[in-house]
C-alpha cells in the first residue's frame, strides 16, 4: 500500500475541523487556545505534506512550518499571559461572561 | 472676484467670524456683531438702491449683479451670484433680523461660541439668497442648518436635546429629498445635449421652451422632491412638527433668525427652484401641495388657539403664516406670488419681533405658560405694548405689514381661483382661498386670547410685580423691527414694485402669467 498525500491530508482535515469545532463551542479560553493550536498544527501538517509531495526538491513549505511553529509558540505564550491576566482581573476565563467592555 | 458687490454678503459675515474668534471679552464680541450687522444692513440698502437705479435705467435682465466663478470644473459647479427684487427683499430682511437678533442676545452665556455659530448661520443664509447656482445654494442651505443643532442643543431651554435633534433630523430629511431633486435637475438641465449646468438662470431661460426645458416627465418627479425638500423648512403640513418643538427650545436670537429668516429659505427655495425651474410640473401638481398648504394655514391657526405656551402658540402661528406663503406661491399668479414674498418679509419681521418679546418676557418671568402670567401691561408696559403691536401685525391690522401681505395674497388667489372656476378647471383654488381667508378670524382669536390673558387683566403672580421693563438694547431690537413692520404696512407699494419687477421674465409665459 502506497502512502499517498491523502493519508496525511485527511487526518489534518479532521484535526482542523476538531480545532474549528472546539474553537466555536468551547467557552473556556484555554480550551479555545488549544483548539486554535490544533488548527495551526493541522495547517502545518498540510504545509509539510504539500512540500513533500508537490515540490520534493524544495524546502519552502518546511520552512514555513517551522516558522509557524515558532510563531505559534510565541503566540501561545502571549495568549496565556493575557488569559492569566484576565483571570486575575475577573477570576474567570469563560468568554460568555467577559462582556464588560463590549459596549 | 471682490469687484462684485454681492460677494460681500458672504465676506462680511466671514470677517465677523474672524473678528469674533479674536475677541477677548463680551464687549468686543457685541461690538463686532453690531458693527457687522450694521454693515450688512448698509450693504443691503446699497444693493437695493443700485438695483432700483439700474431698473429705472431700463435694465431688463432677470437678475442683476450677476457673476460667476468656477469652483469645481468637472461637475460645472460655480459660485454664481445674482439678485432680483425678491432676493434683495430677503437680504434686507435677513440683515435686519441679524441686527435685531444680536441685540436680543446681548446677555447670552458663552457669547463667543454663540455668536460664532450664529454668524456662521447667517453666512449660510446670505449665501443662499445671493447664489443662483443650485449646488452652491444647497451648500449654503446646509451651512445654515447645521449650526442650528448646536445653537439649540447648547443654548436652548426645556427639552433642548430632543428638539435640536428633531429639528436637525427633519430638516436633514428634507435636504435629502432636496439633494435628489437638485441632482436630478442638474442631469436634466440640458436635454438638448449641451453642457449640463447648475445655474438657475440658465435653466430658467429654457423653462418656457418645451424642447429645451427639463423633460416634462422628469419635472413631475423632480418638482415634488424639491418642493417637499424646501417645504419641510417652510413648515408645510405634515412636515411642520419640528417647528413648535424647535422654536420652543431655541434661545431667543435663534428663534428669531430661524422663524424670521430660515423658514423663508423654504419659501424662497420653493419659488426659486421648484416653481421657477419647473413651471410645467408646478401647474400639473400644484393641487396636491395646494391642499397641504391650505391645510397648514387653518390647521396651524386652530392648533395655536389651544396652546398655552407662548412659543408654541407663535410656532403654530408661523406654521399658519408660512403655509400662506407656500399657498400663495402655488397660485401661480403674479399678484399672489407678490403677496407671498411680502408675506415672507412681513412674517419674518413680525415673528422675529414676537420671539424677541417672548424671549424678553421669559427672561424675566421664567415661564412661558400664559396661564401662569397675567397683567403684564401693568408691570412691563413697554414690552406689552410691543407685544400688542406684534399681535396686531399678525392679525392683519392695516398700517402694519401683515395686512398688505395677506390682502395681496387673497386678492391674487381669489383671481386665480375664480379664473379656474370660471374656466371649468374645478373650484379647488377658490375653495382653498376662502378657507385661507377664514384664517384671519382664527388668527384674531388666538392673538387676542394671548394678549388678553398675558397682558391684560389682573396680575396673576405677585412675584412678577418686581420685574423691570425693557433695557435699552431690548428697546433697540424691538423698535427696529416695529419700524420695519410699520414701514411695509404704510408704504407697501414700494415693496410691491420691487418684487413685481421680478415677474417680468418670459419664463412665466408658460404659466400664463
Amino acid at each position, binding site marked *: 500500500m502506497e502512502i499517498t498525500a491523502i493519508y496525511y491530508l485527511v487526518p489534518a482535515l479532521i484535526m482542523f475541523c476538531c480545532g474549528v469545532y472546539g474553537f466555536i463551542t468551547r467557552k473556556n479560553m484555554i480550551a479555545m487556545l488549544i483548539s486554535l493550536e490544533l488548527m495551526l498544527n493541522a495547517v502545518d501538517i498540510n504545509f509539510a505534506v504539500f512540500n513533500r509531495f508537490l515540490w520534493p526538491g524544495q524546502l519552502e513549505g518546511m520552512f514555513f512550518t517551522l516558522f509557524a511553529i515558532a510563531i505559534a509558540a510565541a503566540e501561545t505564550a502571549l495568549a496565556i499571559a493575557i488569559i492569566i491576566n484576565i483571570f486575575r482581573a475577573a477570576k474567570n476565563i469563560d468568554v460568555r461572561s467577559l462582556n464588560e467592555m463590549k459596549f | 472676484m471682490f469687484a462684485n458687490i454681492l460677494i460681500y454678503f458672504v465676506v462680511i459675515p466671514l470677517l465677523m467670524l474672524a473678528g469674533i474668534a479674536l475677541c477677548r471679552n463680551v464687549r468686543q464680541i457685541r461690538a463686532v456683531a453690531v458693527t457687522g450687522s450694521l454693515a450688512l444692513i448698509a450693504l443691503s440698502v446699497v444693493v437695493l438702491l443700485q438695483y432700483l437705479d439700474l431698473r429705472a435705467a431700463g435694465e431688463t435682465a432677470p437678475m442683476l449683479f450677476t457673476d460667476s466663478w468656477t469652483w469645481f470644473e468637472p461637475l460645472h459647479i460655480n459660485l454664481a451670484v445674482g439678485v432680483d427684487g425678491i432676493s434683495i427683499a430677503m437680504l434686507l430682511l435677513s440683515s435686519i433680523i441679524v441686527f435685531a437678533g444680536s441685540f436680543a442676545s446681548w446677555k447670552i452665556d458663552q457669547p463667543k461660541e454663540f455668536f460664532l455659530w450664529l454668524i456662521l448661520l447667517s453666512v449660510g443664509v446670505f449665501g443662499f439668497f445671493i447664489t443662483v447656482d443650485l449646488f452652491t445654494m444647497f451648500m449654503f442651505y446646509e451651512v445654515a442648518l447645521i449650526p442650528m443643532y448646536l445653537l439649540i442643543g447648547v443654548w436652548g431651554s426645556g427639552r433642548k436635546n430632543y428638539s435640536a435633534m428633531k429639528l436637525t433630523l427633519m430638516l436633514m430629511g428634507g435636504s435629502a429629498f432636496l439633494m435628489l431633486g437638485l441632482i436630478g435637475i442638474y442631469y436634466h438641465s440640458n436635454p438638448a445635449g449641451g453642457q449640463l449646468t447648475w445655474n438657475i438662470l440658465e435653466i430658467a431661460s429654457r423653462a418656457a421652451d418645451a424642447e429645451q426645458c427639463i423633460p416634462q416627465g422628469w419635472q413631475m418627479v423632480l418638482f415634488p422632491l424639491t418642493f417637499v425638500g424646501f417645504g419641510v423648512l417652510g413648515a408645510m403640513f405634515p412636515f411642520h412638527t419640528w417647528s413648535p418643538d424647535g422654536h420652543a427650545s431655541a434661545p431667543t436670537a435663534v428663534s428669531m433668525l430661524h422663524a424670521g429668516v430660515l423658514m423663508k429659505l423654504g419659501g424662497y427655495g420653493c419659488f426659486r427652484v421648484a416653481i421657477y425651474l419647473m413651471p410645467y410640473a408646478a401647474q400639473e401638481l400644484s393641487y396636491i401641495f395646494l391642499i397641504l398648504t391650505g391645510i397648514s394655514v387653518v390647521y396651524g391657526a386652530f392648533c395655536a388657539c389651544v396652546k398655552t405656551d407662548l412659543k408654541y402658540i407663535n410656532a403654530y402661528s408661523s406654521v399658519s403664516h408660512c403655509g400662506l406663503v407656500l399657498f400663495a406661491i402655488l397660485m401661480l399668479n403674479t399678484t399672489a406670488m407678490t403677496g407671498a414674498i411680502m408675506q415672507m418679509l412681513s412674517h419674518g419681521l413680525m415673528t422675529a419681533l414676537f420671539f424677541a418679546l417672548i424671549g424678553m418676557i421669559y427672561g424675566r418671568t421664567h415661564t412661558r405658560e400664559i396661564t401662569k402670567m397675567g397683567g403684564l401691561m401693568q408691570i412691563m408696559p413697554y414690552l406689552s405694548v410691543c407685544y400688542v403691536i406684534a399681535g396686531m401685525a399678525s392679525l392683519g391690522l392695516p398700517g402694519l405689514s401683515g395686512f*398688505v401681505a395677506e390682502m395681496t395674497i387673497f386678492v391674487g388667489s381669489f383671481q386665480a381661483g*375664480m379664473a379656474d372656476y370660471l374656466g371649468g378647471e374645478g373650484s379647488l383654488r377658490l375653495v382653498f382661498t376662502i378657507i385661507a381667508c377664514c384664517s384671519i378670524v382664527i388668527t384674531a382669536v388666538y392673538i387676542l386670547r394671548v394678549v388678553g390673558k398675558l397682558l*391684560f387683566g389682573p396680575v396673576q403672580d405677585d412675584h412678577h410685580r418686581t420685574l423691570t421693563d425693557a433695557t435699552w438694547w431690548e428697546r433697540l431690537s424691538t423698535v427696529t423691527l416695529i419700524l420695519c413692520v410699520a414701514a411695509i404696512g404704510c408704504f407697501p407699494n414700494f415693496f410691491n414694485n420691487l418684487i413685481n419687477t421680478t415677474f417680468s421674465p418670459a419664463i412665466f409665459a408658460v404659466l400664463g402669467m
Partner: protein
Amino acid sequence: MDVTVPILILAIPLFMFLLLGLTGMKMSHKLAGTLGTLGMGTVLVLAYVTAFTYFFGGAPEFIDAAGNRLQYLVFDQTWLAFTQNLVIKIGFLLDPISAMMLVVITTISFMVHLYSLGYMRDHHGVYEHGFQRFYAFLSLFSFSMLGLVVAPNIFQMYIFWELVGASSYLLIGFYYRKPSAVSASKKAFIVTRFADLGFLIGILVLSYYTGTFNFTDFTSSAVAGMEGVTQVNIHTAEGILNIFQSSPAPMFMGASVLTWALVLIFMGGMGKSAMLPLHIWLPDAMEGPTPVSALIHAATMVVAGVYLVARLFPLYLMEESALMIITVVGALTALYAAMVACTQVDIKRVLAFSTISQIAFMMVSLGVARMDIHHGLGYMASMFHLFTHAMFKALLFLGAGALIHAIGSNDYTDMHGLRKYMPITHITFLIGCLAIAGIIPFSGFFSKDEILSSCLGNSTIAYVWMSAVAGLTAFYMFRLYYLIFWWKEHKVHEGHHAPHDQPWVMSLPLIILAVISCVAGFIPFGNLVSWNGVPYDFMAHFNWSVAAVSLVVAIAGIALATVMYRKENELPAKFKNAVPALWRWCHHRFYWDELYMFITHRIIFGCICRPLAWFDRHIIDGTMDSFATITNKASDAIKPLQSGQVQMYVWYYLIGALALGGITYICLL
C-alpha cells in the same frame, strides 16, 4: 378744491395719535387732554368748512347747473397696486353722505373729547390712569372713522373699517385690568372680524367681476341708463354695466354672484352695525368708558354698516333680494333689541340695545328704499336718522355717563329720583328721550317719520312692524327715564356727597347736543342728501297721516311708561309675572350669548381646536417621532449581531464561507 384741508382733516388726528401715543407718558394729563381736544377742535372746524363748502359753496364741481349734487374726488393716491386695475388708493371723496358724516363724526368726537376732560377724572379731580392713552386712542379712532367715511374705494373703506375695529378694541379694553372689559373687547373684535371675513370675500367677488374697487365706478355703472338719473358721474360705467346686466353674471348656489357679493358685504355691515345675529358684542362693549360708548358704540362706528350699504346703494338697488334680506334682518333686529331693552337694568345696556334697534331702523329704511317709492326717500330717511340719532344718542350716552360719574354705578336701581339733584342732566336726558321717542318737534320725530313713510310705501307689514317698534322705543326710553329720574325718592347722603351736576366741560357737550337734537329736525335734509343727488323736498311730500299715527304711537308708549314707572308701584312686577317666559327671555337677551359661548367654546374650541392640537401632537408628531423610534429600534435589533464574541463571528464566517462555496458549486454545475 384745495387738498390741504381734506388732508389736514385726516392728518391731524393721526398726528395726535402718534404724538400722544409716543410721548403721552411724558406729558402732564392736562396737556395731553388739551392737546387732543384742541386737535379735534381744529379738525371740527376744518370739517365744517369742508362740508359747508361742499353743500353751500355752489362750486361747479360740487353741484351742477340743475342743482344736483355731484361726487367729487379731492385726491386719490395709489397705495398698493395689486394689478393694473385693482389698485388700492387712499383718497378723499366728497359727496353728500361723506360730507354729512364728516360733520357728525367731528361734532360727536369733539364733544366726547371735551366731555372726557371732566369724565376721565374722579370727584377729587385726579385723572384716571392712562388718561393720555385714552386721548391717543380717541384720536386714532377719529382718524380711522374719518378715513372710512371719505373712502373713495371699497378697499380703503375696508382698511379703515379694520382700523376702527382695532381702535374700538383698544377703547373697550381701556380698563384693561378688569377681566370683563378685556373679554368684552376681545368679543367685539372677534365678532366684527368674523363679519369682516364676509366683507372681504364680498369685496373680492365684486372686484373680480368689475375689475375695480372704486365706489364711483360701481355705483355709476349700476345706475347708468336708469330713468330719472341724470347726474351720477359716469366714468367707466359701460364695461361694468355689461358684466352685471348685458351678460348675466354666473350663478352660484341659486343666486347671482352680485347678490352673493352684496349679501357678503352686508354681512360686514351687520357685524359693525350689530345686526342680529352678530349683535352680541355691542352690549358688552359698554364695558368701555362711557364717552367711548357715546362716540363709537352709539354715534359713529356702529353706523358704519349703514353707511356701507348707503355707499353701495345703487348696486343694492339692482338686487332686490339683497335689499329684502337687509329689510328682514333690520326688522327682526329692531324688534328684538327693543324688546330686550325693556328689561335691562344697566342703563348703558338699555341704551346699547336702543342703539341696535335704531340702527336697525336705518337698515330697514335702506332696505325698503326703491327709486319709485317717493324717489328713494328711504335712503334719505336713513341718512337723516343716522344724523339725528348720532346727536341724540350721543346726548343720551353722555347723560348716562354723567349719571354714572355721579353715582358710581351703571344700574338704575342705584339711581331713582335724581331729577332734583342733577337738573341739567335731567333736562338734556329728557330731550334725548323725547327725540328718540319721536315727539314733534324733536329731531327724531322727523327722521323716524320719514322711515315709516318709506316703509309704508314698500309694504304695509314693514310699516306696521316698524311703527310697533317705534312705540316700544318710546316705552323703553321713558321707562329708563322714569326709573332714573323719578320712581322713588333717592335715599342719599345729603350735603357734600349728594349727587350733583357735573363740571362745565361735561355739561357743555350735553347742552350743545340737546340743542342740536331740538333743532336738527328742521334741517332741509332732503335738499342736501339724496341717493342720486337730486334735491328732494320732503315737506312737499310730507305724509301727515303717517306723522299723526307715529306721534300717537309714541305718545301711547310714553303714556304706558308713565303709568308703569313714574311712581313706585306694583305694575311692573305684575307684568313680569304675567308673562314670565317672555320676560325671562328678554332679560337674558334671548340667550344669544349662551348660544355663542356654546358654539365657540364647545364646538370650535372643544370639537375642532383641541382635537386638532391632539392630532398634531400625537398623530403627526407621533409619526415623525416614530420614524426616529423605528430607526432606533432597528439599530437595537441588529446590534446583537456585533456581540464581540469571536466564536459567533467564526460561526458567521463559516456559514458565509460554506454558503459562498455552495453557491459557487451550484453555479459551476
